[in-house]
C-alpha cells in the first residue's frame, strides 16, 4: 500500500505548471485572444492550473504549423516514424508513475488503474502501431503483360482529433499512434474537463517529434473544437463523444467532404447464463468481478457494462453475491493505491449521474446498494464522488437505455437464450457486450448474435492493441486499437503504369 503525494504538495512526483499555453509548431504559444480557463482536480474540486482558452485564431495557427510539417513528415520512412513512436513509448515507460499520478489528479480516477491500465496500454499502443506501420505493405495488380497497378498507402496530410475526458492520455494515444504512424500531422484538442495531463506527456516526448507534426490547442468545444472540426484545412476528423455532437461533426465533415471516425456511446449488456454458477470456483469468482466491472473508471467508460442480464435459474443467488462484491469496492483518495474507485471527472458529470439515479427511483427501479453521493471527508469533501450503485428494474426504463456514465449498473433477469438476445439488442447502441458462460457454444452464439462491435467472452474491459474496437448501430464509425485504423488515416494512391512501347491506335 502506498499513497502518492498530491501534485503541488511536498514530495509529489508530479509538478503541474501554474499555466499551460497551446503547443503549436514545437513550442508553447499563448492564446491569440489571451484567455485562460481554470482547471480543477475532481479529487478535491480545487483548481490546480489554468489552461489556454483556444479560439479559431489559435486553431488556424496550429493548422499553419501542421501544414508546414506535414509534407516532410509524410515522406519520412516508416522505419523513422516507428523509431520515434517507440522512443515515445520508452520515455513514457520510464516515467510511468509520474504520468499515472498526473492522470489520476487530472481525471479523478484511481491511480491503481492509471498505473496498471491507462499508461501501460498507451505505451503498448504506440509500440503496436510502430510495428504495424513497419509491417504494412502496399499491393500491386498485374492488369496485363505490360500494365501494372501499384497501390501505395499515402498519409491524408493534416488531420483533426478531438479527445474525450474519461481517459485523457490513453484516448489521445489511441488516436495519435495510428495518425502519426501513417505519416499525418495532427491538430489535437483535448477535452476542456481534462486539458492538462497531455501537457505533462508532451513535456516528456515533444522533442522527439519534428515541430508542427503534433499540435495541441486547448479550449472549449464551441470555441476551439468547432473551428477545428469544421475547417476546410483538415483531411479527416476523429472524435470520441456522444451522438448529438457526433452528428454535428458529420455535418461539418459533409460540408468539406472529408471522412470521419466516431466513437460514441454505449449501453453495454453483461450477460450471465445459468451455468456460470455450476461450480463455486475460480471462474465463478471471475464472473462476480465481471459484474463489478461497471465501476471501473467510475463507470466513465463508453463500454461500461451498465446493464447486467442474469438468467432466472441463478438470479437471486448471483445477484446477492454480486451486490456483496460491489459493496467491497473501496472508495477513497484516488492517489492511494488501495483505492478502487475515485472521483467522477467533473461537477456536471456528478449532477447528471444523480439526476439519473433520481429518475431510476421514480420509474420504480429498486436500489440494491449505493444510490447516493459519497462524502469522503477532509479535502476530498469538495471532490465529486458517487457510491457504486446497483439498480434492479426493467429494460424499458431510462436507466437501462441511457448511458449514465457513472458507477451505476441496472440489473434485470432473462428466461432463456432468445430472451437474453432480445433484451441485449433492445438498445440504440452497440459498442460493447459481455457474455459469461462455461458452455463454449452458448458463448460463441451469443457473441455472434449481439449487435455490438466488441463482445467480451468470459472477461470484460480488456483493451489490448491488436483487437479491433468500435461500434455497431449508433455507437460510431471506425475501428480503433487495430492496424485497420491505419486505413482511416491513409489514402490509396494507385499508380497505373504501362510498360508497353506501343500506341493504343485510337488517334
Amino acid at each position, binding site marked *: 500500500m502506498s499513497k502518492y503525494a498530491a501534485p503541488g504538495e511536498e514530495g509529489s512526483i508530479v509538478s503541474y505548471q501554474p499555466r499551460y499555453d497551446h503547443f503549436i509548431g514545437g513550442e508553447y504559444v499563448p492564446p491569440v485572444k489571451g484567455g485562460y480557463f481554470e482547471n480543477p482536480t475532481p479529487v478535491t474540486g480545487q483548481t490546480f492550473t489554468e489552461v489556454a482558452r483556444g479560439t479559431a485564431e489559435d486553431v488556424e495557427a496550429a493548422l499553419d504549423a501542421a501544414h508546414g510539417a506535414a509534407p516532410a513528415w509524410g515522406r519520412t520512412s516508416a522505419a523513422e516514424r516507428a523509431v520515434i513512436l517507440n522512443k515515445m513509448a520508452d520515455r513514457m515507460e520510464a516515467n510511468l508513475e509520474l504520468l499515472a499520478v498526473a492522470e489520476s489528479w487530472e481525471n479523478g480516477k484511481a491511480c491503481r488503474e492509471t498505473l496498471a491500465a491507462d499508461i501501460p496500454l498507451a505505451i503498448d499502443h504506440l509500440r503496436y502501431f510502430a510495428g504495424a506501420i513497419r509491417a504494412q505493405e502496399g499491393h500491386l495488380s498485374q492488369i496485363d503483360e505490360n500494365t501494372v497497378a501499384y497501390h501505395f498507402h499515402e498519409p491524408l496530410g493534416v488531420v483533426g482529433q478531438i479527445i474525450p475526458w474519461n481517459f485523457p492520455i490513453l484516448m489521445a494515444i489511441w488516436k495519435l499512434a495510428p495518425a502519426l504512424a501513417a505519416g499525418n500531422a495532427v491538430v489535437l484538442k483535448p477535452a476542456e474537463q481534462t486539458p492538462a495531463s497531455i501537457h505533462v506527456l508532451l513535456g516528456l516526448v515533444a522533442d522527439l517529434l519534428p515541430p508542427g507534426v503534433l499540435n495541441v490547442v486547448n479550449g472549449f468545444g*464551441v470555441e476551439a473544437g468547432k473551428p477545428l472540426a469544421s475547417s476546410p484545412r483538415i483531411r479527416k476528423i476523429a472524435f470520441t463523444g456522444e451522438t448529438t455532437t457526433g452528428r454535428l461533426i458529420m455535418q461539418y465533415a459533409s460540408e468539406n467532404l472529408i471522412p470521419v471516425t466516431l466513437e460514441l456511446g454505449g449501453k453495454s449488456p453483461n450477460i450471465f447464463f445459468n451455468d456460470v454458477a455450476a461450480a463455486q470456483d475460480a471462474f465463478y469468482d471471475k464472473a462476480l468481478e465481471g459484474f463489478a466491472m461497471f465501476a471501473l473508471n467510475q463507470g466513465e467508460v*463508453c463500454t461500461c457494462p451498465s446493464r447486467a442480464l442474469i438468467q432466472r435459474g441463478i438470479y437471486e443467488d448471483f445477484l446477492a453475491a454480486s451486490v456483496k462484491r460491489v459493496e467491497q469496492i473501496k472508495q477513497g483518495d484516488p492517489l492511494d493505491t488501495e483505492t478502487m474507485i475515485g472521483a467522477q471527472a467533473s461537477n456536471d458529470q456528478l449532477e447528471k449521474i444523480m439526476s439519473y439515479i*433520481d429518475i431510476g427511483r421514480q420509474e420504480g427501479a429498486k436500489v440494491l446498494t449505493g444510490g447516493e453521493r459519497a462524502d469522503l471527508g477532509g479535502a476530498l469533501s469538495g471532490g465529486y464522488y458517487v457510491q457504486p450503485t446497483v439498480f434492479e428494474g426493467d429494460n424499458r426504463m431510462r436507466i437501462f437505455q441511457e448511458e449514465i456514465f457513472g458507477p451505476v449498473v441496472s440489473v434485470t433477469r432473462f428466461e432463456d437464450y432468445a430472451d437474453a438476445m432480445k433484451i441485449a439488442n433492445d438498445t440504440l447502441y452497440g459498442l460493447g457486450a459481455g457474455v459469461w458462460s462455461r458452455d463454449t457454444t452458448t458463448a460463441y452464439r451469443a457473441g455472434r448474435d449481439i449487435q455490438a462491435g466488441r463482445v467480451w467472452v468470459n472477461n470484460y474491459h480488456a483493451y489490448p492493441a491488436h483487437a479491433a474496437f468500435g461500434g455497431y448501430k449508433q455507437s460510431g464509425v471506425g475501428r480503433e486499437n487495430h492496424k485497420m485504423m491505419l486505413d482511416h488515416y491513409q489514402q490509396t494512391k494507385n499508380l497505373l503504369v504501362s510498360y508497353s512501347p506501343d500506341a493504343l491506335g485510337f488517334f
Partner: protein
Amino acid sequence: MGGSRVDLTPQAAQLLCRLRAVHGPLMFHQSGGCCDGSSPMCFPLGEFKLGGSDVHLGDLAVDGLAEPVQVWMSRAQFEYWRHTHLTIDVVPGRGSGFSVEAPEGVRFLIRSRLLTEQELLELDGSVG
C-alpha cells in the same frame, strides 16, 4: 395540444437570455450516449441540421426572448424517453460537446419525472 413534454428552470431561462445576446436565436438537441451525452446540447438555431430522424419535443417560452427555444431529440431515442417529462436545468460545470454554455462555467442538465396518465393521454399523438 394539452400537456407539455419539456420545461425549464428560472436559472436555465436566465442563462438562455445571456446566451441569446451572444449567439442569437437558440435551440436544444438532447444528446444520447457517451462522455458528454445524455445532456441537452444548446446550439445557435440552425447550426444543428434537423431531419426526419428527429422529434420536436416542444418550444420553450422564455421571458425576454422574442422567439421560443425549440427542443428536439432523435426519434429513436424518443421512443425510450417518451414516458418522461424533461426539465432543463443548469448546474456549475465544465460543459462539453459544442454546446454554447460551456465557456460560462455551467452546464445544462436534464431533470426528469414520469408523465402522469392524464398528460400521456393529452400528449399521445401530438408529437412526431
